[in-house]
């Protein structure tokens, strides 16, 4: 929605978010969940280690138990057997409500309480923890800025006035309110359209850059897992861990046919989701500003041998991308923003960049970095080069964390590194 753009127009330049210095690791130790009256366990004895400060994606087909596993981390579902550790602390038996106040939890479509304002929603956990009012208000504003929503505009709105994407952002802000070391998300971006989903994924990555939380995210979308995850757990039925490894290694060496099928065909092009725009070389562009004489800009383009100029506003954000011909028709550069400008963020994947280019019928896209300021131009050729290089280097460096099954049924081929 354009409301988001307006919000960005007023947000200040820099934001420092106060965060805890450490995030915590999580360990599920031989955890089982058996429901009464069902022969097979929903989660049958898994041991899962989630490293501190990393994003771990839980993927698998519907009904495989990934959500159940997630909900056992914060004990919304109590495990039948096994222990759960948060860092060094065994939290299997402590008070459930107290445990959950120490973790952030985001569900699909935000789960915002419709009868409370955005500010009240976000401030709920701090309020429960007894923070003073002033501190809560400051924190609310801080978090709204973190998720790119102008505090003045959004703090007193009600959820029903927000779009799906905005609600989701508020949901994330709410989960981060008390600065928990761990963030759990259950299909957080499932309820929005693909374009909004891409933006939200980028936002999450930017946020993680700043706050470095331990995140466990459930998704059924493997592309999303590759884009967001530092590590991916592939589950089959019964929350059985089939492969737990880095995205690169899973794509390059799927453990078995199940994983291959899950990845889908065309794994080769999945390389596109592994590489970010900021990893490739961006081209420069001739820059113009509103108010300049079109003739001057045109001269500079011709001198440099370019076909287009990038018009930036006073905050270095791209407004439009006129061609020589268009410039020829103008006298002064206007300040109006082109709504269909192909723009892609630095943190976006090459896949997103290609999508944006295809949608705009251009062979290139404008790249933005911090605070949406212009960073360069990315072209199709550059992406093609990057794919070729990436395929040659499909190796990660770190060793995958622990993820094993301790269930009764031994399934052959367990290819974790």
């Amino acid at each position, binding site marked *: 929605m354009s409301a988001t753009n307006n919000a960005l127009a007023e947000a200040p330049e820099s934001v420092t978010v106060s965060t805890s210095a450490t995030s915590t690791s999580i360990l599920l130790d031989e955890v089982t969940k058996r429901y009464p009256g069902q022969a097979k366990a929903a989660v049958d004895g898994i041991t899962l280690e989630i490293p501190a400060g990393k994003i771990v994606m839980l993927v698998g087909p519907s009904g495989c138990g990934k959500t159940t596993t997630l909900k056992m981390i914060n004990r919304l579902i109590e495990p039948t057997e096994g222990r759960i550790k948060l860092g060094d602390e065994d939290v299997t038996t402590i008070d459930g*409500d107290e445990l959950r106040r*120490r973790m952030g939890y985001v*569900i699909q479509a935000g*789960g*915002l309480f*419709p009868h409370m304002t955005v500010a009240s929603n976000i401030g709920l*956990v701090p309020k*429960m923890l007894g923070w003073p009012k002033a501190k809560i208000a400051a924190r609310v504003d801080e978090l709204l800025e973190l998720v790119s929503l102008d505090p003045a505009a959004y703090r007193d709105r009600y959820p029903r006035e927000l779009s799906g994407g905005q609600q989701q952002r508020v949901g994330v802000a709410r989960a981060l309110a008390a600065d928990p070391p761990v963030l759990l998300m259950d299909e957080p971006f499932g309820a929005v359209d693909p374009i909004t989903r891409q933006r939200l994924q980028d936002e999450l990555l930017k946020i993680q850059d700043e706050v470095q939380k331990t995140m466990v995210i459930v998704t059924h979308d493997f592309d999303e897992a590759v884009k967001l995850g530092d590590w991916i757990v592939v589950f089959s039925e019964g929350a059985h861990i089939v492969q737990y490894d880095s995205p690169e290694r899973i794509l390059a060496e799927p453990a078995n046919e199940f994983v291959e099928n899950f990845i889908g065909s065309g794994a080769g092009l999945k390389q596109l989701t592994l590489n970010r725009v900021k990893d490739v070389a961006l081209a420069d562009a001739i820059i113009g500003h509103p108010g300049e004489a079109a003739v001057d800009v045109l001269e500079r383009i011709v001198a440099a041998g370019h076909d287009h100029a990038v018009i930036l506003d006073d905050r270095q954000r791209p407004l439009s991308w006129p061609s020589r011909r268009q410039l020829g028709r103008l006298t002064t550069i206007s300040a109006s923003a082109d709504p269909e400008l192909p723009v892609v963020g630095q943190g976006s994947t090459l896949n997103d960049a290609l999508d944006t280019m295809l949608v705009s019928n251009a062979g290139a896209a404008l790249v933005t970095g911090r605070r949406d300021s212009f960073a360069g131009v990315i072209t199709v050729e550059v992406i093609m080069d990057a794919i070729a290089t990436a395929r040659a280097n499909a190796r990660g460096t770190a060793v995958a964390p622990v993820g094993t099954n301790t269930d009764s049924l031994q399934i052959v081929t367990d290819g974790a590194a």
Partner: protein
Amino acid sequence: MTDTLGAETTRGETALAEPVRGDVPGGARSWRGLLIQPIVVALILAGFVVWLATAHLSPTERSTLNPHDLLAYTGQHLALTFVSAAIVLVITVPLGILLTRRPFVRASGVILALANVGQAAPAVGLIVLLAFWLGFGFWAAVVALVVYAALPVLRNTMIGIQSVDERLVEAGRGMGMSALAVLIRVELPLAVPVMLVGIRTALVLLVGSAALATFVGAGGLGLLITTGVNLFLPRVLISGALLTALLALLVDWAGRVVEHYARPKGLQA
């Protein structure tokens, strides 16, 4: 009695998959729609007063319809209505909340069936029956009225709470809210609109049934109706009926006003 497609209130509003919602022309959003009712009531009341002052009434009629008694009857009527309403609320709202908690869900079927029977019984029958047991007077009538009006409030309380999106409860628990905190801060506020409709329905029901309380000597505007019938005084009869109807409309309007203002902001559907 099996439940229908959702909320079934006898003297109530639409029964659909959605629980009953207030049905004001113009909707609960427009406060302008709220003005029509009291204005009409006021006009008719004014007309009545004028007529009362100027019409040629027989001495008996005059004496029955004197303002002092009229006010007394109205007062008794309101007392019956609101005392019964208060008792109904105190009993059925907590009961309704309790029955939506997981351990009691099975009991809810039985209790609802019982309440259903209470509603199927004719109000006048209940009032008279209880009078045999409790004697005549105000409190006997109140007991009967409470039994009669329990169902709409109970049912709407339960449906209102059950209609709160499960995922909101999950989000609340997931954030670390205790079950009680979720009930008080999430489920109840969101259930309030539906509950208020049930309460309003019950109030209107009570005004109508309180008219029958005269049969057991509890006074109220129904006395005018029975006097009018017994002594062949049609004008007294009509006055009683008219005043009762106007009172019901007024109480209904008051209920709608409360509904409108008590609706949590952000829920204006």
